[in-house]
C-alpha cells in the first residue's frame, strides 16, 4: 500500500512539473518565445510607403516618388573572392568553361556602368580596406536609376549588390520648382510645398517578416507577419497649370536676361476665385538638382520676399477713397511737381512737370504722387489702414506657404506712421507687400470688390480617398460700384498711359497699372535700385484673370517698360489658353484733365 501511494505521489509530482513547465512555455512566455523563433527563422523586411504625388490642376504630375538604388560593394569580399564566369570554350565551341575574371576587369566593368573608371572603383576598395581590413560595406554610387541597377545586376559580380533607396523625381524640371520645393540629400523635405504640405504627402514605411525556404528564399505561405502596415502619402493637387506655369516662367526669364534684372516675379490668378494659375519666380530652382541654383533662388520670392510695391498700390488707394464716398473718377485736383503738406510731408513726382489739372482718372494715368496724396488725405489714416487690412495686406495669405511673409504696414497708423509715411503709404512706399498680396488686391478690384481667399493647394486626397478642400468664402472689401469705377479708371490707364503701345493686346479690354518703386536700404533711406512692376486684369468688361509682374533692379531698363512686355505676353497667353472671348465694346471714356 505504501509503495502504491509513493509511486502515485511521484507520478503526480512529475506530471505537475510537466504541467507547470508546459504552462510556462505555452502561455506565460509564449509571445516572447514565438518572437525568438520567428527572429531565428526569418528576417524583417521593410515595405516602403510611397510619398504622395504633387499634381497640377489637370492631374499632370509635378513630383512623384520613384525607387532608386544605392550600389554597394564589399571591399573585403572584393579583395578575396575569386569570380568565375562561364565562357565558350575556344577549343570546343559546343561547351563552356569557367574562367577566373581578375579584379581590375570587374572593377572596370562596374565603373563603366555607374560612370566611374575602373581605377576609381579599385580606389574605393583599397581605401576602405586601408581603413578597416574587414570593411564589408562601401558605396560605389548612390541613387542610380532602374536601368543602371539592372545593368549592375546583369554583371553578376557576387560582391556587388544594391540597396533600395526611395527617392523623389520632378518630371517637369524647374516648372513650378519655386512652389514645389525639393527634398534634401537625406530625403527630408527641404523647401516649398514639399515642406509646407508634408502632413499630406508624408508616407509611413511598414515592416513585415516571413519564413522562407533555406536555399532559394521562397516565402512559405501563411507565415507572413505584418509588424507595421505601410501607408502611402496623400496626393496634393495644386491650382497651378503646368503648361501655363512653364510659359510664364519662360517669358519672365527671357525678359529677366534681356533687361539684366536680379530677379522677377509673375503671378497669374483667377479673378473670380482667387486661385493661383501660375506663380513664377525666376531664376527658378530645378528641384531635380537644387544645388545648381543659388541658395537665394531656391524658394518663391512671390511669397517670401516683401517689397515696397510703389504705384501699383494707387489702385487700392483710389478704390478706398471712392468706397468712402469722398471722390469719384471725375473728382478734380491740381497736381504740382512738388507739394508740401501742412504736417511737413514733402511729396514730389518722378519727373519735373508744370501744374496739371487732373481728375482722379488722370492722376492714375499720369501716376501722380502729388495728385494721389491729395485724394488720399481725404480719408483718415486709420480708415485707409483698415481698408489695407481688409484687402489682405499685413497678414500672410491663406496659402500658408513655408516662410511666407506677411508684409509690413509700418506699424500702427496713429502711433508709428511719421508725417512722410502717412502720405507715402498712399502711393505704395513706406509699407511692404508680397507679389501674391498685390495680385490679391487686383483680384478684389476685378471681382466687384469681393476678395477671395488666395488658393494654391486645391485639395489633398489621402490614400483612403478622403479629400481635404480649401475653404472658399469671399469677403466684400469695397463696394461693387467703387470696384467698377476703379476698374474703368485702370482701363483708361491701360489705353492712355505712356506704355499703352507696349502692352497692347488687340481685341481685349484690359485694366492695368504700372509701378516703379524705390527699394529701401533698410535704414530708412532708399537705394538707387528700382522694383518695376505692372499689375492688371482682363477682360475688363468681365474680368477673368489677374496678372502681376515685378522685376527687381533691371539694370538695362530701369522703368516699368521692362515689365510691360511681360505683362502683355503673359496676359495674351492666359487669354489664349483659356479661350477667352475677346471683348465686344470699347472701354468707357473718362476725362483725365479739366
Amino acid at each position, binding site marked *: 500500500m505504501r509503495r502504491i501511494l509513493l509511486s502515485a505521489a511521484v507520478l503526480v509530482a512529475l506530471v505537475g512539473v510537466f504541467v507547470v513547465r508546459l504552462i510556462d512555455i505555452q502561455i506565460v512566455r509564449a509571445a516572447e518565445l514565438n518572437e525568438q523563433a520567428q527572429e531565428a527563422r526569418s528576417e524583417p523586411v521593410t515595405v516602403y510607403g510611397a510619398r504622395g504625388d504633387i499634381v497640377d490642376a489637370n492631374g499632370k*504630375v509635378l513630383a512623384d516618388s*520613384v*525607387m532608386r538604388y544605392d550600389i554597394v560593394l564589399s571591399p573585403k569580399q572584393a579583395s578575396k573572392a575569386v569570380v568565375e564566369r562561364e565562357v565558350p570554350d575556344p577549343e570546343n565551341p559546343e561547351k563552356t568553361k569557367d574562367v577566373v575574371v581578375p579584379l581590375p576587369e570587374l572593377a572596370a566593368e562596374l565603373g563603366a556602368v555607374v560612370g566611374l573608371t575602373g581605377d576609381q572603383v579599385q580606389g574605393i576598395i583599397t581605401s576602405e580596406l586601408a581603413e578597416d581590413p574587414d570593411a564589408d560595406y562601401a558605396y560605389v554610387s548612390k541613387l542610380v*536609376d*532602374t*536601368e543602371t541597377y*539592372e545593368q549592375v545586376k546583369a554583371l553578376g559580380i557576387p560582391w556587388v549588390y544594391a540597396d533600395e533607396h526611395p527617392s523623389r*523625381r*520632378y*518630371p*517637369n*524640371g*524647374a*516648372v513650378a520648382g519655386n512652389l514645389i520645393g525639393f527634398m534634401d540629400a537625406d530625403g527630408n523635405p527641404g523647401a516649398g510645398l514639399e515642406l509646407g504640405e508634408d502632413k499630406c504627402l508624408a508616407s509611413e514605411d511598414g515592416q513585415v517578416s516571413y519564413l522562407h525556404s533555406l536555399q*532559394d528564399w*521562397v*516565402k*512559405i*505561405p501563411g507565415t507572413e507577419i505584418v509588424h507595421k502596415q505601410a501607408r502611402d502619402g496623400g496626393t496634393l493637387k495644386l491650382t497651378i497649370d*503646368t*503648361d501655363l506655369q*512653364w*510659359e510664364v*516662367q*519662360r*517669358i519672365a*526669364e*527671357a*525678359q529677366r*536676361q534681356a533687361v539684366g534684372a536680379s530677379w522677377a516675379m509673375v503671378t497669374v490668378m483667377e479673378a473670380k476665385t482667387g486661385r493661383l494659375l501660375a506663380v513664377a519666380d525666376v531664376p*527658378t530652382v*530645378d528641384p*531635380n*538638382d537644387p544645388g*545648381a541654383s543659388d541658395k537665394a533662388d531656391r524658394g518663391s520670392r512671390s511669397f517670401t520676399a516683401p517689397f515696397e510695391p510703389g504705384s501699383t498700390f494707387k489702385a487700392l488707394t483710389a478704390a478706398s477713397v471712392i468706397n468712402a464716398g469722398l471722390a469719384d473718377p471725375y473728382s478734380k485736383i491740381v497736381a504740382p511737381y512738388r507739394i508740401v503738406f501742412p504736417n511737413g510731408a514733402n511729396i514730389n513726382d518722378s519727373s519735373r512737370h508744370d501744374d496739371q489739372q487732373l481728375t482722379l482718372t488722370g492722376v492714375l494715368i499720369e501716376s501722380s504722387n502729388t495728385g494721389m496724396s491729395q485724394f488720399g488725405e481725404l480719408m483718415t489714416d486709420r480708415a485707409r489702414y483698415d481698408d489695407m487690412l481688409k484687402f489682405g495686406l499685413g497678414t500672410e495669405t491663406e496659402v500658408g506657404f513655408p516662410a511666407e511673409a506677411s508684409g509690413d504696414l509700418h506699424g500702427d497708423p496713429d502711433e508709428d506712421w511719421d508725417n512722410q509715411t502717412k502720405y507715402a503709404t498712399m502711393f505704395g512706399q513706406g509699407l511692404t507687400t508680397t507679389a501674391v498680396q498685390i495680385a490679391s488686391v487686383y483680384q478684389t478690384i476685378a471681382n466687384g470688390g469681393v476678395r477671395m481667399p488666395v488658393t494654391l493647394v486645391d485639395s489633398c486626397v489621402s490614400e483612403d480617398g478622403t479629400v481635404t478642400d480649401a475653404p472658399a468664402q469671399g469677403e466684400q472689401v469695397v463696394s461693387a460700384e467703387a470696384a467698377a469705377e476703379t476698374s474703368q479708371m485702370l482701363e483708361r490707364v491701360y489705353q492712355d498711359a505712356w506704355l499703352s503701345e507696349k502692352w497692347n*493686346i*488687340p*481685341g*481685349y479690354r484690359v485694366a492695368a497699372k504700372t509701378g516703379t518703386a524705390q527699394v529701401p536700404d533698410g535704414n530708412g533711406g532708399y537705394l538707387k535700385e528700382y522694383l518695376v512692376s505692372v499689375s492688371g486684369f482682363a477682360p475688363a468688361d468681365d474680368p477673368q484673370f489677374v496678372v502681376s509682374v515685378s522685376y527687381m533692379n533691371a539694370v538695362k531698363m530701369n522703368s516699368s517698360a521692362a515689365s510691360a512686355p511681360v505683362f*502683355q*505676353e503673359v496676359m*495674351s*497667353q492666359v*487669354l*489664349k489658353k483659356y*479661350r*477667352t*472671348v*475677346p471683348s465686344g465694346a470699347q472701354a468707357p471714356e473718362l476725362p483725365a484733365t479739366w
Partner: protein
Amino acid sequence: MSAVQAQSLPAPRRVGTERPQRRLRPAPERAARPKPRLAYAVIALGGVAVIIVAQLLLSIAVTQGAYEIDALQMQQTTLTRDEQKLSEDLDRVESPQFLATKAEGLGMVPNSDPVYLRLSDGAVLGQPTAAEGGAGASAPLVPNALIDGVPPGAQHKPGETPVEGTPGHSSGAAPETPGGPPTVPVDGGLPTPATH
C-alpha cells in the same frame, strides 16, 4: 408513528428464498455476435489514408503555389521596374521643355494674339496678327535636369525613332516623311494645296 416503530423494530430479515434463485439463474446464452466485417476496417483505414494523402497533396499544392507566387512576384517586380522606366521616359518627353524644343525644331512659333471664329454667325473675334514668335529656344530658360542629354527633336531624321533613348521602337513604326522635315513657309503666306 409508524416511522418510529419501524426504527425501533429490528429490520425484518429478508426472505432467503429469492437470493439463491437469482444466483443460480443460468447465464444467458450470449447472442452470437456477428464477426466484425472487413469493410469497416477498410473504410476506417481507407479514410485515414485518404486524409493523409489529401493532406500531402494539399501541402504539395501549397508548396507548388508558393513557388508559383514567388516566380510571379519576381515577374511582377521586373514588370514594375519596366513600367517605371518607361513611364519615366514618357514623363521626360512629356515635359513642356521637351515639347517646346521639338515644336521649335519643326519651325513652329507661338502666336500671342488669339483670334476666334464664331460659328453661329461667322463673326471674327479679335484682330488677326501674324505670329512673330516669343522668347526663343526654351530649354536654357526653364531648366530640366531630367532631359539633359536627350537630343531635341530637331535633330532626328525621318525614319528614325522619334525619341532617341527610348528602346523598343522599330524604325519602321515611325512615319516616313518624304523629302526631309517639313519646311515652313517664310514668305508669310499659307501653303496652297496642289490639288484642284
